[in-house]
């Protein structure tokens, strides 16, 4: 089971790792990319949209601005037109007052308590009063009366124009005709009113208005009680005399109501300033932005207005508290831009300006960019929210995906590993018990695994069959093997015996080769013995009997000399070679010839034979004697006797040695047990047997160290020495040097046999130990020699090696002690 678990773990880990990393990573990357793209695109679109909206707003506002400006301009123009109309009418009037009638009948005039001459009742027209300061004469009265003619026109203008609240005329003599009718007009204004003090009069005069055109006033507080006004006034000249000023009043409120309360897109605000920056009309919102409150309403106090009360300086934009605002506005007014970005109190605006040509006023539109962008911001928020939702969803998806993958990979690994693990287990089982193994089907939808499983099962079936076959075969085989073993044992026994016989026959063959030599080795001592025995028997037969007579016949003086000679000869030792002896012989011969001794050469031979090589001074007297020759002969014979016995002894020894060597060589020891033996004895035995071959011209050099006895098979080792020495001699062709060295090295005895023959050629060095390999012609050697030698050495747990060069070949045998 551990196999299964281990594999599962490993496979699982592998698959998981790869699976997950290879799928999660790209997914994750893709998600990130998508998110980035989303937000990026979103931001891009937002920005684009914002710009678009801004552009649209700008365009729109421009359109509106120009439209409205046009509108205002138009309306103002209208009023200006009316003013000019009034101007021309009045001018006509003053030129020809009679031409004008009384449209509403005769008005009733009265003088008030405060001295004001005024029209008392409303007749559908305008109100009238004269300042108390004016003396009312007929002229004035007539003027008051006649100017009634303008009432319809005044009424028309006021009624038909929504912007117009009042129309009036003020004269130099402080007459005021005003439509709409003011009830109790005498009480409205200060009793003494000097028209020339008021801006709505003096701004049109010759000084301020030399062109005599329509003048628009700044905003002022209407003395007539209608609140903050602005008037379009025209001077009325009677030739070059300023009769008065006609004006059309437009309340700021009206403007605000009619013009400024436009339903503008983006909650834009429009406001009006005059060419100096004085605010003419401004909605509350803009007031908030610029941190000021429009004085639209003025609570008329009890104080009557005596001078123009204009709007305070606060209400000049260019004199605003906020420096930033001022700077921007100055720039705007100075330049020709019709749309700029404007910042006030931290808010960003679009500010558009349109100049109303009629009055030089500026119609300004203020659009809070935020409002423009509002939809965008909303969208942006929405997009961001969506984005967050998407992120959340993606995370959820991702987690879900991870879980899914984990599950999937687990399934996959199980799918793969289960059958494989099963196979692994099965194969392990198989190792233990082939017979009892059962095949389990383990289907998998992985082709390779399925294939493997099937093949494995097939293999198991086959193996089982094979196993069964094998068992059967084995049983049969065992029986057969037993039979064969028995046969082989017998054969082996035979072979061993044969081998032994072969070794023996090799021995015999070697021996056979030596027979002639050995025969000679025995014959030689035999020959020596025979001849010596012959010599002795001859002596006994011939010389012995004569001895007593000889000794008797010896004169006293010769006896000593003779016995001295005899003694000398009997003590002889043969030290010299034949060649050397010859030299002595010749020297003696000459010496004796000098002494005139007869047969000097013969005598010299005998003397030398007796071991007398020189110093014959003591002998000379004997030689010179008459029986000298006899004496020498007798001495010679006696010495010869000794020599003969010695020879017999030597020869016997030699013969025995050879026989012994032969015996030990030919021995066929079947005991099969090792014995303690002296290796050198064996070597010497062989050398003895080969003596005859050796004496032909082989010098033996022996180098024996003190060797301990060795447990060995001595007879078999003799075979070894024989073969090696034989090979060496043959190699040297029985002429040369044979060196035998015996040493101890650690735990082995080393025997080196060296010859100075031509050596073993390199190409056959490998083969010499092969059985039946020989360099001799057929019939002249079995070729088994070295093979047998090697086997014998192996039997001794020893080693045989050789080195060979021209002139030196050494075989080294090492035997463990």
């Amino acid at each position, binding site marked *: 089971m551990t196999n299964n678990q281990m594999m599962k773990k490993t496979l699982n880990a592998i698959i998981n790792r790869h699976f997950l990393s290879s799928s999660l990573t790209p997914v994750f990357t893709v998600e990130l990319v998508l998110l980035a793209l989303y937000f990026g695109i979103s931001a891009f679109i937002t920005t684009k949209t914002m710009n678009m909206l801004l552009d649209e707003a700008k365009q729109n506002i421009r359109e509106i601005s120009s439209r409205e400006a046009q509108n205002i301009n138009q309306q103002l123009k209208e009023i200006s037109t009316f003013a000019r109309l009034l101007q021309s009418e009045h001018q006509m009037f003053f030129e020809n007052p009679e031409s004008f009638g009384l449209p509403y009948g005769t008005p009733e005039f009265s003088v008030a308590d405060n001295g004001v001459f005024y029209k008392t009742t409303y007749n559908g027209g305008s109100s009238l009063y004269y300042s108390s300061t004016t003396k009312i004469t007929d002229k004035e009265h007539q003027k008051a009366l006649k100017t009634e003619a303008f009432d319809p026109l005044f009424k028309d203008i006021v009624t038909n124009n929504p912007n117009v609240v009042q129309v009036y005329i003020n004269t130099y003599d402080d007459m005021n005709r005003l439509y709409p009718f003011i009830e109790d007009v005498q009480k409205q204004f200060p009793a003494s009113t000097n028209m020339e003090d008021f801006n709505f009069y003096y701004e049109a005069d010759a000084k301020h208005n030399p062109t005599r055109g329509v003048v628009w006033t700044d905003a002022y507080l209407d003395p007539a009680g209608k609140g903050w006004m602005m008037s379009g006034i025209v001077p009325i000249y009677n030739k070059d005399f300023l009769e008065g000023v006609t004006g059309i009043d437009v309340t700021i409120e009206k403007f605000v109501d009619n013009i400024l309360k436009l339903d503008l897109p983006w909650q834009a605000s429009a406001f009006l300033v005059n060419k100096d920056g004085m605010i003419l009309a401004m909605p509350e919102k803009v007031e908030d932005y610029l941190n000021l409150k429009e004085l639209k309403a003025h609570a008329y106090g009890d104080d009557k207005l005596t001078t123009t009360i204009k709007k305070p300086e606060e209400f000049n934009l260019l004199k605003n508290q906020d420096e930033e605002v001022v700077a921007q506005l100055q720039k705007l007014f100075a330049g020709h831009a019709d749309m700029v970005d404007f910042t006030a109190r931290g808010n960003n605006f679009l500010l558009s300006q349109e100049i109303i040509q009629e009055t030089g006023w500026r119609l300004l539109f203020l659009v809070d960019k935020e409002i423009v962008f509002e939809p965008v911001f909303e969208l942006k928020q929405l997009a961001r929210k969506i984005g967050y939702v998407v992120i959340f969803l993606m995370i959820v998806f991702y987690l879900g995906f991870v879980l899914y993958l984990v599950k999937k990979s687990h399934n996959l690994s199980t799918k793969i590993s289960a059958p494989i693990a099963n196979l692994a287990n099965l194969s392990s089982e198989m190792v233990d018990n082939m017979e009892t193994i059962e095949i389990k089907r383990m289907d998998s939808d992985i082709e390779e695994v399925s294939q493997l499983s099937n093949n494995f099962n097939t293999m198991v079936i086959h193996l089982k069959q094979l196993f069964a076959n094998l068992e059967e075969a084995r049983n049969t085989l065992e029986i057969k093997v037993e039979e064969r073993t028995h046969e082989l044992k017998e054969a082996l026994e035979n072979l061993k015996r044969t081998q032994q016989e072969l070794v023996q026959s090799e021995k015999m063959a070697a021996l056979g080769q030596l027979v002639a030599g050995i025969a000679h080795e025995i014959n030689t001592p035999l020959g020596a013995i025979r001849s010596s025995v*012959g010599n002795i028997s001859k002596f006994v037969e011939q010389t012995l009997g004569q001895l007593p007579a000889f000794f008797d016949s010896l004169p006293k003086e010769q006896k000593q000399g003779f016995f001295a000679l005899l003694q000398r000869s009997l003590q002889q030792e043969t030290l010299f070679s034949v060649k050397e002896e010859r030299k002595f012989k010749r020297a003696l011969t000459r010496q004796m010839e000098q002494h005139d001794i007869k047969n000097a050469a013969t005598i010299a031979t005998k003397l030398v034979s007796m071991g007398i090589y020189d110093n014959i001074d003591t002998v000379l007297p004997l030689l010179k004697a008459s029986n000298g020759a006899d004496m020498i002969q007798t001495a010679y014979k006696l010495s010869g006797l000794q020599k003969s016995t010695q020879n017999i002894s030597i020869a016997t020894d030699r013969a025995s040695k050879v026989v012994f060597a032969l015996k030990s060589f030919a021995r066929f020891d079947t005991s099969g047990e090792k014995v303690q033996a002296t290796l050198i004895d064996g070597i010497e035995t062989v050398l003895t047997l080969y003596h005859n071959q050796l004496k032909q011209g082989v010098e033996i050099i022996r180098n024996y160290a003190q060797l301990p006895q060795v447990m060995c098979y001595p007879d078999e080792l003799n075979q070894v020495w024989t073969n090696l020495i034989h090979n060496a001699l043959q190699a040297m062709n029985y002429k040369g040097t044979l060196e035998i060295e015996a040493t101890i090295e650690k735990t082995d005895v080393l025997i080196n046999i060296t010859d100075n023959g031509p050596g073993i050629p390199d190409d056959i060095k490998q083969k010499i130990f092969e059985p039946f390999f020989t360099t001799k012609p057929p019939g002249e050697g079995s070729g088994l020699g070295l093979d047998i030698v090697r086997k014998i050495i192996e039997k001794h747990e020893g080693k045989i090696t050789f080195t060979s060069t021209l002139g030196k070949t050494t075989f080294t045998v090492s035997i463990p002690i």
Partner: protein
Amino acid sequence: MSQAVILCVDDERVILDSLERQLEDAFGDDYLYEFAENAEDALELIEELTDEGLHIVVIVSDWLMPGIKGDELLVRLHKKFPKVVKILLSGQADKAAIERAKQQAKIHRCIYKPWSEEELVETIRQGLEKL
């Protein structure tokens, strides 16, 4: 008067000793007896003897000797001194060698070791008579 020499050649000292006694016994002082231990020495000796004015009448030689074998020696000797009684006295002689000695050296006889004294002496006498 040049004395006749009987030359014995053998690498075994004991053989030479034996031969000396046997020959002395048989021929006494009639001949001078000279000995060599190998063929080279023998040839040298023959030169010396010739210089000294001695002549060889009999040569008894072994066959198996170190260096030049007996048959070769006798063949050489025969070339120089055809009138010498040549006897091959050998323990083991190659058949071919004996044949050669007989053919080319005209040996009188080949005697095998161990030899009997009588045989040897008789052979020599016979050889000498032939001369």
